[in-house]
Structure formats: C-alpha cells, structure tokens
C-alpha cells in the first residue's frame, strides 16, 4: 500500500490485487478482466462474420455457430460491457463526489470476484462439453431442450456473476447517497455520477427478475422441476417476460453510464459547462423510469394481443423524447464552445450520429405492426449494434483514452488513438449499416448460414469486411496500451488541461486515500470553479487529520470461489436432466457452499476495524515519502 510506485515482487502484486478493497485497484481488475472478455467476445464476433461471409459456408458447423453466437452476446453484455463500465465507475465516481472509497469496500471486492468467477465458469463450458447454444435470451422451450450442459453453464454462471452485479449496484447507490463531500448536493453531481446512480438503481430493480428466471431454469434442468415445461403445465412465455423485464432495463444499465462518460468528455473538450444540466439529469431519471415500462416491445410477435402491443408501442416511443433532449443538450454544449479534437472527443463526435441512427431505428421498431416485419431479422441486429457499439462501446473506448491517465498515470498515444478510431468507426458502419437492408430483404437473425440465390450475398460480404476493420482497430488499441505501459511516461493531475470535475484535481494515479483532506464542493464542475479562481488545489472542508482506511481481505475471493465450486456440484448432481450425474455432485455442492458460508462466517465473527493513516505520515507523503 503505497501512494508512490514501489518495485514489488510479482507475488506481492498478485496478492495485493487478490485482497485489495481499494476502488481504484478494483477498477484495474474490472478493466483487465472485462477487457479480456471483450477480446474473447470480439473473436467470437469475427467467427460469426467469417461464417456469414458467403452463402453455405462451413467455417464452423451449425451447432458451433449457435454456441459462438450465444456466447458472443452473453459475453459482450454481461462480461465485457458491464464490467468495463464498472471499471470506470469504480475509478472515477468516488473521486467525483469527493469520497475516499465506496461505501462498502469489502462488498466492492466481493462484487468483482463474483463476476470474475461467474464469467470464468461460463467460459469453461467451451472445454467441458460445449457452450450454451440458445441465444443470450435463452428462451425456455429451446433452452430446456438443449443437449449437454451448455445452458447449465449459462444459468449457474449468470447467477454467480449476477450476484456480483447486484452487489456492485447496491454499493454505488449507497456510496452516492452517503459518501458525497460537504457541498456536493445531488444537483451538483457530475453527470457520470448521476448516470451511475440511475444505472445502479436499474440494476437493483432489473437483476432480481433475471436471477429468478435463471434460478427457475436451473431448477428445471438440474433438479427436475417444471416451471417452463409446457407438457407438465409450465409456461414458456413467462420466461420471456422475466428475461425482458430484466433485458430492456439492461440496455439502459449499459447506455446510461456511456451517456455519463460523454457528458463529461463533451464539456471538457468544449471548455464549456454542460448545457441544460438539470434537464440532462431529468432526462436520465426519465429514461431509467420508462426503461421499465417497455419490455414487451421485445415480444410484439409473441401474441400478447392488440391492446398490449399498442400500449407498449407508445410507451417505447416515449423514450425517444428524453433521449432526444440529451442529444440536443450535447450539441448545444459544443455550440459556442472551444472544441479541441482529442481521441476521447473524437469518440464523442462519432457517438452522436451513430447513436442517433440507432435511436431512430429503435423508434421505427416501436411501431408494433412494422416490427412484425423487423423483429428477429438483421434489421434488429443492426439496430442494437448501433445502440450498443455506437453508444456503449464508443463510450468505453472514449473513457479508456479519457480516464487512462487518471487510472494508470500515463497517456495513451493520441496518434494510434486516431488510427484506432478511424478504422473502428468506418468498420462499424460498414459492418452494421448494410444489415438494416439485409433484414428488410428477408434475412432472419441467428442463422448459421444462408442459402444462395436470395439476394443476400453482397450485403453479408460487405458486413464481414467491416468486421475485419474493427478487429484491426482493436489490435492497434492493444498495441497502444502495451507501448504506453512500456514507455511509462507519467502525466500530471489534469493531463487534459480542461478537466472540470474533482478527479482531475488530485494526482494521476491518485493516492490510495484519494483526498488528504475531504474537499469542499462550492458548485457544479468543482475543479473548474477553483481553477477559474486561480487556485491550484481544491478547497478543503476539514483540517488535516488521521484517515480511517479498510484492511485488505482475501475473504471476497473465497466467498466467490465457494460458489464457483458449488456450481460444478449443482451441475453434475444426480438429478440433472442431461443424465450424467456424478456421485460426487452433491458433496461438491455442499463443500462449495460450505466454503462460501464459512468465509462469510469468518467475516462476521472476526472484528476488522481497519487502520488509520496518521497525520504525520500524510505530511511526510507530501515530501515524497510513503505511507502504509
């Protein structure tokens, strides 16, 4: 534990990361693991596009295609996009509100390790008889019928990682409500904090339905229940409801933080405060609220009836209004500003038109009778990739460049960043724009191949070429990360020079206690206000004193490991529907749960008061000494 870089052995570093409860280190863990899964999901995407490059292709067989397609979606949503966003939330939000850490640092670590083991478990399916193959939506009739353990990896993996997500969401809610520095009223919070807050509320309300859904599905497949088995009086439509009551808010869980990131980047590089701050906040809340009112638009063709379809059509259209407010506010933030083109700003500029296209095709699909045509075709594939890549991935890439200095103390190469952006932007539109037309021309989604003579050849070829461009862009980004780390050229506190919020007022990377003295917040864009008054530091809200810090702990790792072990036991229990139950199934399930609950017991029984950093050490720290 040190604020300055100290050479440490590899073992010590690994142990530090295994036990850390520091939100900044957990951010590194999320970014690293999420980045790994992003590459994995990207390779899966490439396989999909290679397979669909030409008709009747047999690069992968049909079963493998379904597994790759399922894992691409599941990985990208649950294991890449969300964790990477959590990385930036962890790295930035506590500092943005002037806190020394999140409300529950221990839970923060637990959230990460649950996600980590859930993701690992899910991906081990590749080596243990095949991955899930029923799509990321895993509709019950198909998923119940799926052979092998693929779907079990899905239900168990998502339960474990889902707990992690839920815990992290609750943690951010508690942090943002309780840990704000003096003066940081809700209406002075930076937009990224606001969107994190709303996204966390959505996690709190949206993840339980998913957990229940996969829990019931797990019981159907592993323990002989019949919740979704129609022949036994079950119902599969209820799965669709469970899934989409989660699934639609999930889109906003992903895209709201991305909105927040752009709401930080655009004012920074326009050197102008966010236009219409309060309406931006209002729009965020409204999107979050409406996000729960529209799930059935994923089910227009399920046969819910005309009244339901009409109501959900109109509710869905309504979301376009707050989203439109946001777009115009961003444009007006730039209007009259002094726009500096940097890599993060380029992504923001690329995001606006891309996301608008994704948004308007969303409204088109809200037109229920029109959606009867568009649903489950390549049109919808194009639509949600415009939203998810044009919105979320652009946001993630922008934040990677924007917050890299704050997270690692170095700055990614701008030159390589331009190349990555250009290739990625062109590749993205090349891949997905044409897919709107493929869908309209009659190509269903999730097809392992297409037959010749249907007029679909050219579009698919163009789409596949675009995917290659995106792959090259990501490789250059990786190269950029490696080169930057090797060069290790340190930057100052405010490397973009126009930073507005508090994270830019403290060192890059920040000391582990963030603020020596809790800052006093005197308005929106706290750091900008101080800078404009010629100050070099934030105004402190308290005299220099001892800082109370939490101790590191290996317990979160073991709580999560226990569930990982238990999941194997559950999967191979003698009752499972695949029929390959093992005698060790039940014992392993019990041992795994024993590890988890035992670890929790240890945590409960042992007093852990944390420790204090003394005032004298903090003063020492100023002179280049070290604390801890």
């Amino acid at each position, binding site marked *: 534990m040190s604020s300055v870089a100290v050479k440490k052995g590899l073992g010590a570093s690994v142990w530090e990361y295994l036990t850390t409860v520091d939100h900044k280190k957990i951010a590194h863990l999320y970014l690293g693991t999420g980045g790994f899964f992003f590459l994995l999901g990207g390779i899966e995407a490439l396989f999909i596009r290679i397979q669909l490059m030409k008709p009747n292709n047999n690069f992968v067989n*049909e079963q493998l295609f379904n597994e790759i397609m399922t894992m691409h979606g599941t990985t990208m949503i649950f294991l890449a996009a969300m964790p990477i966003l959590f990385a930036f939330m962890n790295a930035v939000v506590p500092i943005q509100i002037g806190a020394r850490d999140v409300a529950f640092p221990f839970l923060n670590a637990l959230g990460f390790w649950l996600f980590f083991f859930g993701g690992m478990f899910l991906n081990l399916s590749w080596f243990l008889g095949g991955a899930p193959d029923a799509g990321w939506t895993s509709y019950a009739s198909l998923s119940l019928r799926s052979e092998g353990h693929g779907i079990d990896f899905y239900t168990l993996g998502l339960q474990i990682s889902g707990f992690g997500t839920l815990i992290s969401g609750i943690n951010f809610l508690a942090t943002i409500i309780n840990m704000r520095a003096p003066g940081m009223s809700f209406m002075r919070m930076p937009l990224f904090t606001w969107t994190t807050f709303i996204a966390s509320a959505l996690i709190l309300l949206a993840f339980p339905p998913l957990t229940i859904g996969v829990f019931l599905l797990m019981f159907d497949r592993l323990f002989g229940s019949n919740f979704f088995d129609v022949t036994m009086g079950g119902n*599969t439509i209820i799965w669709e409801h469970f899934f989409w009551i989660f699934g639609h808010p999930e889109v906003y869980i992903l895209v709201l933080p991305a909105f927040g990131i752009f709401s930080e980047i655009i004012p920074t590089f326009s050197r102008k405060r966010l236009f219409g701050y309060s309406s931006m906040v209002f729009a965020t809340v409204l999107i979050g609220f409406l996000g729960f009112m529209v799930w059935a638009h994923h089910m227009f063709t399920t046969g819910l009836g005309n009244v339901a*379809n009409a109501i959900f059509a109109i509710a869905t259209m309504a979301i376009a209004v707050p989203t439109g407010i946001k777009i115009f*506010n961003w444009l*007006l933030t730039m209007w009259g500003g002094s726009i500096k083109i940097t890599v993060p700003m380029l992504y923001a500029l690329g995001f606006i038109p891309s996301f608008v296209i994704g948004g308007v095709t969303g*409204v*088109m699909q809200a037109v229920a009778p029109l959606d009867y045509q568009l*649903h489950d075709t390549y049109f919808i594939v194009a639509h949600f990739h415009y939203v998810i890549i044009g919105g979320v991935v652009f946001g993630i890439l922008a934040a990677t460049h924007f917050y890299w200095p704050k997270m690692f103390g170095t700055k990614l190469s701008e030159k390589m960043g331009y190349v990555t952006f250009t290739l990625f932007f062109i590749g993205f539109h090349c891949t997905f724009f044409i897919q709107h037309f493929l869908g309209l021309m009659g190509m269903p989604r999730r097809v392992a191949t297409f037959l010749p003579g249907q007029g679909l050849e050219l579009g698919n070829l163009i789409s596949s070429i675009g995917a290659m461009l995106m792959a090259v862009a990501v490789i250059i980004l990786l190269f950029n990360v490696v080169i930057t780390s090797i060069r290790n050229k340190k930057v100052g506190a405010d490397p973009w020079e126009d930073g507005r919020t508090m994270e830019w007022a403290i060192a890059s990377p920040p000391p582990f206690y963030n603020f020596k003295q809790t800052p006093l917040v005197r308005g929106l864009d706290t750091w900008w206000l101080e800078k*404009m008054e010629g100050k070099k530091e934030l105004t402190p809200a308290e005299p220099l004193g001892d800082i109370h810090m939490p101790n590191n702990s290996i317990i979160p790792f073991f709580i999560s490991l226990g569930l990982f072990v238990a999941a194997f036991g559950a999967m191979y229990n003698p009752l499972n529907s695949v029929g390959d139950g093992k005698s060790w199934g039940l014992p392993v399930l019990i041992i795994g749960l024993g590890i988890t609950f035992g670890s929790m017991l240890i945590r409960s029984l042992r007093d852990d008061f944390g420790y204090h950093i003394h005032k004298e050490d903090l003063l020492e720290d100023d002179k280049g000494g070290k604390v801890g």
Partner: protein
Amino acid sequence: MGMKFGRLSFLFLLLTLVLAGCGEPFLSTLKPAGEVAETQLTLLFISTSIMVLVILVVVIIYLIVLFRFRRKKGEENKIPKQVEGSHKLEIIWTVIPILLLLSLSVPTIAATFKLGDVKDMDKVDKDGNREALVVNVRANLYWWEFEYPDLGIITSQDLVVPTDEKVYFNLKASDVKHSFWVPAAGGKMDTNTDNENKFYLVFDKEKADEAGNLFYGKCAELCGPSHAYMDFKVKAVSRDEFNQWATAMQKNKEEVQPTSDLAKQGQEVFQANNCIACHAVTANDARPETARTAPNLADFGNRTRVAGILEYNEENLKAWIQNPEKFKPGNQMYKEANLSEEELDALAEYLMGLKVQE
C-alpha cells in the same frame, strides 16, 4: 406547411426509389405481395421519413458546431461563456419530438388493430360453413405442417393459398418456439408451445406472378442447429387453381398407387423401413397431431424443394434420405440411413410419383 409537406413527400419518393431496388420479390419485405406487407411498408416509409427529418436536424446542428466552434490557433487560452441552458430551447426539443411521435403513433395504433383483427376468421355463411380460408400451421423441429381444417387436408413444407383474399392462420409449435414468417406477404407471428396465435395474410395475384407464384417462408425464431434451414414455400395461386388443388387433395383418401416396377419396389422399401409410421402418404391423415411426427408426403411429387431447402431432383432426394444429418443437423428423422443404391433409386422413384394432380 405546404412547403413542408412537399419536402416530406419528396423524401417519401426518394425512399421508395432507394428501397424498391432492394431484395428479391419472393423474399423481400420491400416488395410487398399483399395488403399486410403493404401496410407495413407504408409504416416503414412514414417512420423513416420522420426519422430522416430528425437526423437532418441533428446533422445540420452537428456540422455547424463542428465547423464554427473548433478551437483555432491563438485561442488556446480563450474561455468560452459558460452557458447554463435555455428553457426555451429545452421546451422546443421536448415538444417537437412529442408531436412527431404523436403523429407516428396514430397510424401505429390503427395498423396494430387492423392487422390484429381476426374476427372474420369465425364468420360463417347461412349453412354454417366458415367463409374464410383457415390454415392451422404447426411448426416442428425444422419442418412445417399445414392443415386445412375445413377442407380436411394436411400437407407440409409447401403451403398452398389462394390469391386476392385474406388467408387466416392458427399458429402453434409442437416442440420448441418457432416463428412463422413470409417476408414478402407480411410480418411474422411466433408459433408458441403454450398457445395458439392467430393472424392473416393476403397474397395479390399480380405480385404472386412477379414472384413466380412462389414466396419464401422462414422460421424467424432460433430453434436449434438447423434454424437457418427451416424454410418453407408458399404457392400462391388463383382461387380456381386452389379449388382444383384442394379437390384433388380431398380425393386423396387412398395412397396414389405406384405404376412402374421401380416405384412399387420403392413402396416396399418405404413400408419395410417403417417410414409410414411417421410419414403419412395421403392428405387425409386422420391421426392426432401428436402422432404426426414427420412431414406429410401426399403430393410429394409436386414439392418445390427437397427438405424445404434443396433443389427438387432425384439426386438431392436420395442424398437427403441417406444422410439427413448432413443437410439439417439435429433433425428428428435419423442421423443417416444405410440404404443401398437400388433401394434409394426405388424410394426416389416412388416418392416423386406421389402426385394428387399433374
């Protein structure tokens, strides 16, 4: 207003021109074959026009911002005015989208109720006979069954419908969820395992001619490894031709007896291998649907494809019978057969001779 309307209709025209070039008449939603698909295409045009308008406004502001407000040389230290916001602008960009969406919601709701209207499905004439044609569609792992309950006909893979009238469908699935979609004729409807869905489609005579009287149908819901191969075809013929076909099918109470020796031999192979246990060879299969576990082969001689996807010829038929797993992995027939070349020849001859009409 007139000016604005003019611009809108110009956009409309432009879109029509661009989109009309897209896709094949037997498959594309952009080349509607009847009332339902036309309604949906009109909604596509209306919504696209409004959305293109929105995009234009955004792009114009975007470009102005990008060209006018870039940081210029010598302005490195300039701090622009920190504008808080503008109530007037906020109201404008809240109210205008609401108005646009309201104008879009009117045709949306109207079309939802129009296309979802299946009241006439059960309308009967004075003799108590149903007036409209109703087809029960049953989706199975990688094949489709089409039952005409009022005509007492069952067929599969090739749906035959009369043109220029509403054809009503009862839709369900017998194993996993599928989705019934004839893109050129109209949007899809899921075939659930839990319940029956109902909707209708219309096929115009003129459009059917353009498409060679054969529309492509697809399964639109992921249903397993051969989801991509779960195609069917729709033969849209005039009412007279349809009646002829229906009469011929109704007469097909007994199996069409093979004439050539080879075909007779094929019939024996068919029976010896117990194919008949699953595949009916007459259109009046009286067994309950749970017993109808494979496509009905009556009139197989007039099929347009082998297994819904392969070109209809002897070679493909033989290859399919011998090794179905190769063409439709995960299908419920069998992985591969071990038939001799002679047996295959005979089977093909027999099956391709199953015709209710020439």
